[in-house]
C-alpha cells in the first residue's frame, strides 16, 4: 500500500466542488491540484482560521487561497488530521465574496448569526476594525 498522494483526502462534497470547477475553469482546477500536491508533500501550510480555533469545533481548520490570473479566486477548506494528513471539505469560489459582507453586517444587526461564538467573535472583530479606522 502506497501513501503517495494519499495524505490528502476529499470528502464527497469537495469532489462535487471539483466536478463543478472542472466545468468552469480547467486552469483553476490544475492550480488546486498543484497546491494540494504541495500540501500532500508537506511543503504548503494552510492559513488557519485563527479566530475560531478556540471554539473547539473549528480547531485545526484552515484555508488555502487559489488565485489564477483572469479567473475567480477560490478557497480550499482544509482540516489538519495530524501526522501530515489533511482532509478537504470544500473548494469554494469567492467571486461572490462581496455578498458575504452584507450577510455578515445584516446578521450582526438583526441577530441572524445563530452561533453565539461566531456572533461575538465577529462583533469583536468589527469593533476592533472600527477602532483602528477611527483611531
Amino acid at each position, binding site marked *: 500500500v502506497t501513501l503517495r498522494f494519499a495524505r490528502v483526502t*476529499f470528502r464527497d462534497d469537495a469532489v462535487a466542488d471539483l466536478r463543478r470547477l472542472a466545468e468552469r475553469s480547467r486552469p483553476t482546477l490544475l492550480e488546486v491540484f498543484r497546491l494540494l500536491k504541495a500540501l500532500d508533500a508537506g511543503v504548503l501550510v494552510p492559513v488557519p482560521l485563527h479566530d475560531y480555533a478556540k471554539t473547539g469545533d473549528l480547531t485545526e481548520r484552515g484555508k488555502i487561497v487559489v488565485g489564477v490570473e483572469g479567473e475567480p479566486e477560490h478557497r480550499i477548506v482544509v482540516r489538519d488530521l495530524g501526522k501530515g494528513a489533511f482532509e478537504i471539505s470544500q473548494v469554494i469560489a469567492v467571486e461572490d465574496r462581496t455578498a458575504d459582507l452584507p450577510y455578515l453586517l445584516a446578521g450582526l444587526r438583526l441577530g441572524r448569526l445563530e452561533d453565539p461564538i461566531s456572533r461575538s467573535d465577529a462583533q469583536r472583530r468589527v469593533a476592533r476594525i472600527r477602532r483602528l479606522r477611527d483611531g
Partner: protein
Amino acid sequence: MCYETFRLLLDVAEDVAIAQRIREHDAKDNGNRTTLGEAATEFGIDLEAL
C-alpha cells in the same frame, strides 16, 4: 467606509461564511473519502508531471 476597512470586513465576512459552511457540511458528511491520487485520476491529471 474606507476601502481598507471594507477589505478588512470582507476578511471577517469570509471567515464567518466559511465557518458557517463548515458546520453545514459537517452535518451531512457521509464519511466517504477520496484520496488526492484517486481524484487526480478521475480528472485526468498527472500529479507527477504537475
